[in-house]
């Protein structure tokens, strides 16, 4: 099927996620330097993960907004830049250990649990850590998550056609890293929302045959 494009910066965690058996028939890696309208022609969603190439995205933002204008979904994680996203992202310290030191005080304080991305999730499954906050969002955007200081963590808008969702969470990268064991909950919700298909319930596994490759499809 492979109807969700995962914009690929050659980063290992992106690769681990997209080649995992439970996700590999849904996501299609699209190397960021090869991003064109044609590469997205059969896709219904585009994921721009944390640790993306901000320069290359800015150079190709026309592809992204034409994809949105056609009614498709774009999902952005981590940091972004105002030269391709009409919003202001700012860095903040990352707290990876709140669940040890302050387990009742997660970095996200308020989540719209009616949103399909977060529906049915436990509060700790809706946030592991954040990479910064948004201090400005597009004029018609709706806030989906805020941190304890009231700053915006996640937002979405339909003002460009399809749904543009941005968050400072980094679910794709962290699911690839596999140091947080509950991320199947979030990533399976995300995958169903983007692709229309619910992945298998089992914990993500890794195919050793995907490593040490000498060619990669472009």
């Amino acid at each position, binding site marked *: 099927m492979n109807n969700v494009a995962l914009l*690929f*910066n*050659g*980063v*290992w*965690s992106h*690769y*681990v996620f997209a080649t995992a058996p439970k996700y590999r028939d849904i996501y299609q890696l699209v*190397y960021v*330097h090869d991003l064109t309208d044609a590469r997205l022609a059969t896709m219904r969603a585009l994921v721009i993960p944390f*640790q*993306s*190439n*901000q*320069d*290359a995205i800015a150079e190709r933002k026309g592809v992204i907004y034409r994809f949105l204008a056609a009614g498709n979904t774009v999902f952005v994680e*981590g*940091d972004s830049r105002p030269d391709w996203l009409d919003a202001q992202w700012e*860095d903040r310290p990352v707290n*990876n*250990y709140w669940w*040890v*030191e302050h387990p009742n005080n997660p970095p996200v304080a308020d989540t719209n649990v009616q949103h399909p991305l977060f529906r049915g999730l436990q509060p700790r499954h809706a946030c592991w850590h954040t990479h910064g906050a948004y201090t400005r969002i597009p004029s018609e955007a709706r806030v989906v998550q805020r941190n304890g200081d009231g700053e915006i963590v996640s937002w979405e808008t339909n003002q460009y056609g399809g749904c543009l969702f941005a968050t400072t969470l980094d679910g794709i990268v962290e699911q*690839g*890293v*596999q*140091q947080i064991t509950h991320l199947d909950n979030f990533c399976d919700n995300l995958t169903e929302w983007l692709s229309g298909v619910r992945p298998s319930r089992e914990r*993500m*596994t*890794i195919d*050793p045959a*995907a*490593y*040490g*490759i*000498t*060619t*990669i499809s*472009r």
Partner: protein
Amino acid sequence: MLNIVVIHNGIHELELMFQPTAEASYTFVRTGPGFPERLAATLATADALLVPNGSDHVAMLDASNVVVEFLQAGKTLFCFDGWFTAWIPGNHWQMDNSRRTIEIRYQIGTDQHNILDGVAIDELIFNHGISGWWACGFITPAANAEVLLTDTWGRAMVVLDEATTPGRMILTSSGPLADFRYDGSNSNALSHLYRNLLEYSSQKIQP
């Protein structure tokens, strides 16, 4: 002083981790169209190539011949990342999630050159009491490569390979290393290990 070329794939604030010091100067090479040629030209005057955590291993596969040529000239490769493409001669990295991170502990391997001297191994294992935060997956090292650090199950986490090519390859199993003094982490084990690696590599510069 080492002249180091760092691969830059446009991720946020990569430059902060590689600021010039008395031990090293840095030149960044951007990925994208023309990358292999750009890398080859920049490496002409470099002592070392550094592939940081979060790097682009599609670009590195495209430039694998450039890397081999650099190593054949006796130069140094640092890769502190998970190389899922086969651009590093003789050594293989793969991701694995079959072991529990709570059980991860590291042990010093052969370390014939005392590269781990003064490095607080516990800081590589634990962060705020949480284990398994640093490296991911494991390395299958080349024959005769030196394994500096292993994990609970004896798998290679840090490798020094001076056997496969005339140069040297210093590889982590995706564990990030840099000089983190820029953010005040002066005694951090990662910075300490990184500076030890720079010092060892500096000794290998041919006059």
